[in-house]
């Protein structure tokens, strides 16, 4: 039985109050290494959102109609990660055939996505929280957009930081993490927003 939560609330909660990156720390690896450049951040954000929505739908169907009826729930980690890897691979091929321009923009990010914890994280959250199909789609879309928003904001801040005098030891990942900390604090400020359902 899935919880009776309005999908729209879930959608906004996963963008703002419980941002997958800033509150759940998921998808950090590629986040820190890519966020130096706005254009690539944008591309990666888009790719993550698309893959998130696609894989969470696929995983939901597999979970509901294969894993649960056959009592194979304990295999879910393997299944989820293979679905994600396969989706990314297929997506890469399709984009390459259909739109070379888009491939140029997205192609290099796609392999990075398989090991992005946010994707697997969303799949596991939707399983553990028992979301319905609609809830899953909204939650995945919200998480993807939230991640996109966070990486765009961070890359913009990083651009400003280039001109700032940062102590030598703090340069690079140190200051990036502290910046993310401030962003996470700012996002907590959204939590009052969602009590109005």
């Amino acid at each position, binding site marked *: *039985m899935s*919880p*009776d*939560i309005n999908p729209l609330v879930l959608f906004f*909660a996963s963008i703002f*109050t*419980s941002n997958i990156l800033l*509150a*759940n720390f998921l998808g950090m690896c590629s986040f820190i290494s890519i966020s130096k450049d706005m254009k690539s951040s944008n591309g990666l954000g888009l790719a993550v959102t698309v893959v998130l929505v696609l894989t969470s739908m696929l995983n939901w169907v597999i979970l509901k109609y294969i894993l649960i009826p056959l009592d194979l729930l*304990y*295999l879910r980690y*393997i299944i989820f990660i293979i679905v994600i890897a396969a989706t990314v691979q297929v997506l890469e091929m399709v984009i390459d055939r259909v739109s070379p321009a888009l491939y140029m923009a997205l192609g290099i990010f796609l392999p990075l996505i398989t090991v992005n914890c946010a994707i697997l994280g969303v799949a596991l*959250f939707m399983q*553990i*929280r*028992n*979301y319905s199909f609609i809830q899953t789609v909204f939650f995945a879309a919200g998480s993807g957009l939230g991640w996109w928003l966070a990486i765009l904001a961070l890359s913009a801040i990083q651009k400003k930081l280039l001109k700032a005098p940062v102590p030598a030891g703090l340069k690079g990942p140190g200051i990036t993490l502290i910046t993310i900390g401030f962003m996470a604090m700012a996002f*907590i400020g959204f*939590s*009052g927003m*969602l*009590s109005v359902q």
Partner: protein
Amino acid sequence: MKKDSIFYTVVFSFIIAFIFVFLLSLAYGATKEKVAENARITEARAYLSAAGIEVADPGEIEAAFNSAFPSFDEKAPFNETTVNGKKIVVSPFSGNGLWGTISGVMAVTADLKRMVGLAIISHNETPGLGGRIEEKWFLDQFRGESLSGKIEVIRGSGSGDNDPDNGKVDGITGASRTSSSIEVIVNNKINELKEMIGGIN
């Protein structure tokens, strides 16, 4: 045979996937009983803790549960029993948290004047934030709370409000949605119990 031929790749993938899945199903089968037992113990402990009985040793929980609830019917909406000479009513509840279903057990006195205790069986709230609803300091605030009015979860000092007469408990700082969900769930359950039991007596 060539290592990069398609045939080898396919056969290798199949064999390795088969071996892993086989080993996993063995491990799963071997622990299935134990996991089911753990789930039973968790539930029994929630009932005991709501009724105000602390059992430290996990091995004794089932025995303590059977002696505290001799005629327990898990399909009934609520169960009555006597703890320390007082008649109490225990009943499972569930409702929506921020992320998913929160379920637990509530115990109230049979005259519906006081809450005996609250325990959480499962939830999906954020660890360290909303997840703290299962911590003792939070749940202990409900012990003995007066049920004459609505129970309010308020923004307090964050360390607990242990006055049983004011109908107020402190919410969890940083998890206002989870705190207000608990407020709704608890009050719904109280009203439900008042209707059911009030109707019988």
